[in-house]
């Protein structure tokens, strides 16, 4: 049985949906931002929201929380980590993923269901997908414009792209999500945890959580 740990920072707002999504495939528990102990979980989800009010820059303060020190260590030793929206921003600030998230080009908060194309299935969080799959998943953010300097772009392990010319935020090369070189750490702006029930229009988000269970190396 896979156990997911979902972090709760002051200002997180999507941690409960992430717990519910993870519980389709395993156990899931909350991890408090002040805890250094990850409680032996097999995979960590850094959820969406506005950690520490997003003061200074999105994700900048959360990156230094006690729990993130342990998550960084966990990630470096091959642990599975998924950052969603604000979680993606935190992982970029922490240097666990390349790049940064800038304010949307149109300067507005956006909230809509989009097609998200899977670019790579060679990550822990997309192993249950195939390249070219288009997942129906919502985005909701103000700072989702993925950026890396041109000279680093070729090295980025792109995992998701906005499909059908649907780039909502001006993100470089339509990038919606990336992974580290090893593929155990993935971050994306769309919210797979909000696409897990037919009631809200799509269950495609479950694929990511299913992937983590499939991928996990038995202890």
């Amino acid at each position, binding site marked *: 049985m896979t156990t997911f740990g979902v972090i709760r920072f002051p200002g997180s707002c999507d941690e409960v949906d992430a717990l519910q999504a993870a519980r389709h495939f395993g156990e899931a528990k909350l991890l408090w931002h002040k805890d250094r102990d990850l409680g032996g979980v097999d995979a960590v989800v850094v959820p969406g929201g506005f950690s520490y009010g997003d003061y*200074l*820059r999105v994700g*900048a303060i959360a990156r*230094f929380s006690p729990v993130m020190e342990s998550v960084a260590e966990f990630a470096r030793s091959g642990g599975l980590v998924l950052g969603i929206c604000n979680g993606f921003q935190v992982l970029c*600030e922490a240097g666990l993923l390349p*790049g*940064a998230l*800038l*304010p*949307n*080009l*149109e*300067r507005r908060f956006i909230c809509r269901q989009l097609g998200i194309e899977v670019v790579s299935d060679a990550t822990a969080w997309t192993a249950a997908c195939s390249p070219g799959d288009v997942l129906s998943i919502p985005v909701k953010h103000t700072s989702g414009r993925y*950026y*890396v*300097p041109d000279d680093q772009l070729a090295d980025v392990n792109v995992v998701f792209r906005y499909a059908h010319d649907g780039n909502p935020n*001006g993100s470089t090369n339509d990038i919606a999500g990336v992974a580290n070189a090893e593929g155990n750490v993935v971050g994306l702006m769309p919210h797979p945890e909000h696409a897990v029930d037919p009631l809200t229009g799509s269950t495609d988000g479950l694929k990511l959580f299913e992937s983590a269970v499939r991928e996990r190396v038995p202890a």
Partner: protein
Amino acid sequence: MARVRVLVRPKEGILDPQGQAVEQALPALGFDGVSNVHVGRLVELDVEDPGQVPAMCEKLLANTLIEDYEVVEEGAAA
């Protein structure tokens, strides 16, 4: 204690929609001849050792992938 100002700016070449919005708003108010507007962040702090401020910028106050910073020492803190 020394008074220090840290000016954080979007890096040149990175699209700055906030600066563009301000640049477009000014002519509408009758202020013509304005260009190259960028919006950044000002961090003011009193520090015992101003020599530490660049390290603070590198680690927290700026994200050097997307932002440039400038440290301005203002003399003794009030």
